[in-house]
């Protein structure tokens, strides 16, 4: 609002202003649309995009409360209330999927952050530029490739007949193992693959945060005779706290959402591994693609979205209470 407008408003008689209030507000909205019409036009493609691809499917969650069939469509199919959810809860399926999804994510968050921070601190100790450059490049590489290739790598390493691991076992005189039917081994394998793929990428954020620490702090610590451990404990780790909290909040917000591509390319349709590895995403994908089951899959999806939404809100609210600067919104 320009100075002139503001002056004009104050000079007008009070009664007249009250009467014309709503009309003027409407006019001012209209005016700001007119003033910023070019910026609105520039946003229009993105708005249209999210409207079509993200908001468009939203009414479809109604399927979760129906006995959906193609012929009657989403809103013509018979309404069944919470029957689809009842089935999911009673069969225990919802609990298994939630447990797997959340536990995998917790393992990823805890181990991932520990490893990323450790590697960032170690990178800060490295003085050889060439060494740093080469090792960092190598560590990002796994993040760069498609998950399909990750599946190929797992096949190369772990398959029964020709896998590199079994080749090694056989070469040392042992008996080959059927890894693709050992449900107990896969949580460990999936966690290792996840760390393999994301640690280099994640450590960069922490490394950048360490580089941003005031050099004076390091010098002061050195003068005071701090050991390497004390330097890490009292200088580096406290400085990483804001970064850590923001990243933690991000990942906690997504705790109900699994990395579909990774799980699908490692496990796929291998039912003997589902008890320990089936997460919400893979289960929903199977229901839709191979069973044409839209009702249960929509119910699971809706449960996931609502629960995930609540968790983001709670996490954000908690952080906001602690320190407003750390909150996401």
């Amino acid at each position, binding site marked *: 609002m320009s100075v002139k407008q503001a002056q004009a408003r104050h000079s007008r008689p009070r009664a007249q202003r009250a009467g014309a209030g709503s009309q003027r507000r409407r006019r001012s909205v209209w005016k*700001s649309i007119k003033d*910023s019409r070019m*910026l609105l036009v*520039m*946003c229009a*493609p*993105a708005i249209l995009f*999210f409207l*079509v*691809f993200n*908001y468009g*499917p*939203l009414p*479809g*969650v109604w*399927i979760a409360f129906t006995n959906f069939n193609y012929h009657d469509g989403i809103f013509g199919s018979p309404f069944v209330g919470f029957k689809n959810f009842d089935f999911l809860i009673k069969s225990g399926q919802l609990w298994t999927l939630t447990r797997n999804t959340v536990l995998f994510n917790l393992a990823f968050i805890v181990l991932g952050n520990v490893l990323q921070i*450790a*590697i960032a601190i170690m990178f*800060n*100790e*490295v003085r050889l530029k060439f060494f740093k450059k080469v090792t960092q*490049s190598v*560590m990002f*590489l796994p993040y760069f*490739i*498609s998950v*399909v*290739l990750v*599946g*190929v*790598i797992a096949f*190369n*390493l772990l398959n029964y007949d*020709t*896998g*590199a691991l079994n*080749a090694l076992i*056989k070469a040392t005189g042992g008996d080959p193992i059927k890894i693709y039917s050992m449900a107990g081994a896969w949580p460990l394998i999936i966690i290792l693959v996840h760390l393999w793929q994301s640690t280099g990428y994640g450590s*960069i*954020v922490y490394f*950048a945060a360490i580089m941003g620490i*005031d*050099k*004076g702090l*390091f*010098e002061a610590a*050195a003068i005071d*005779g701090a*050991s390497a*451990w004390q330097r*890490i404990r009292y200088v580096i780790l406290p400085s990483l706290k804001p970064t850590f909290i*923001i990243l933690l909040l991000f990942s906690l917000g997504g705790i109900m959402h699994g990395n579909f591509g990774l799980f699908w390319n490692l496990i*796929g349709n291998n039912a003997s591994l589902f008890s320990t590895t089936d997460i919400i995403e893979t289960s*929903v994908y199977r229901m*839709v693609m191979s069973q044409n089951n839209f009702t249960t*899959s929509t119910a699971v*999806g809706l449960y996931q*979205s*609502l629960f995930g939404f609540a968790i983001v809100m709670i996490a954000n609210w908690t952080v906001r209470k602690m320190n407003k600067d750390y909150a*996401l919104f």
Partner: protein
Amino acid sequence: MHSSETPLISATETLTVPGKKRRWASNQARPVKSAKSDLVLRFVSYVFITLFALFCLLPFVLIVSASLSSESEIMRSGFGLLPKDFSFTAYEYIFKAPRQIIGSYVVTVVMTVTGTAVGLVVIAMTGFALFRQDFPFRNHISFFIYFTTLFSAGLAPTFLWVSNTLGLRGSYLAVWLPLLMTPWLIILMKNFMRTVPFEIVESGKIDGAGDFRIFWQLTLPMMKPALATVGLFLALGYWNEWYLSSLYLGSTVEFKPLQYYLYNIINTANALRNSVAGSNVSITDLPSNTLKMASAVVATGPILLLYPWVQKYFVSGITVGAVKG
């Protein structure tokens, strides 16, 4: 966040011998000699980083070595770190009947180039508008975009919506369109825009330039690193795409995007045979193990060759993107 000369630093400066140059280049100055714990930490760091880098690299070595091995030797003794009985047979199979792989390459390259170009323009325009503090609707639109990351319809309704309501099943558009932008890339672009001084916009306004002209002629030329970074993530999204293809393309198209093509070769025996169709071999005679690995190398190769040149934009994307928007 570079520190200026704080009193602390000047105090240490007086401790060092005058006239002697500082040897330490990085952010850890050493006015006193290194303690034993420093040396231990440094030693551990070099060892651990070397080991972890090897851990990251080895799988790639495995794949390349396997693709250069002979099938009979792999069947006998399994995959290993070095090529066994060095042979190009698998690659010969692929390039004897290259129709499928060339078709997939063309589809993927066209999608990547056009998708990245269109996506970049749209993301840059949106990022510019949301960066403008004088844009009265920036908070509404930001929320409208951000909300999609908080709540989504889920796979089943989205699948029905895209394939039936939009009617995109079996069309490359079902893959190309959804990859054009993500909320995260728009926020990333907006964060990058913050490096542009707002005075540039103001001076443009005073000189009578329209909003689009300020964007196109004043802001965009300063945004080259941002465009490179966002473009890289877009291109990577298109190149590595297999998921939307599996949902909406299936086997309806002759030429599948490259990674989905690879996905099929790995997971179905038929796809493996079709990939070398025309060479008239039965499935049992195919060198299936080495062929899978060679296909993986061919499908991944170009992106790895580009990697050294694009890596720095990748890093800037990670660090700028981590700042909340």
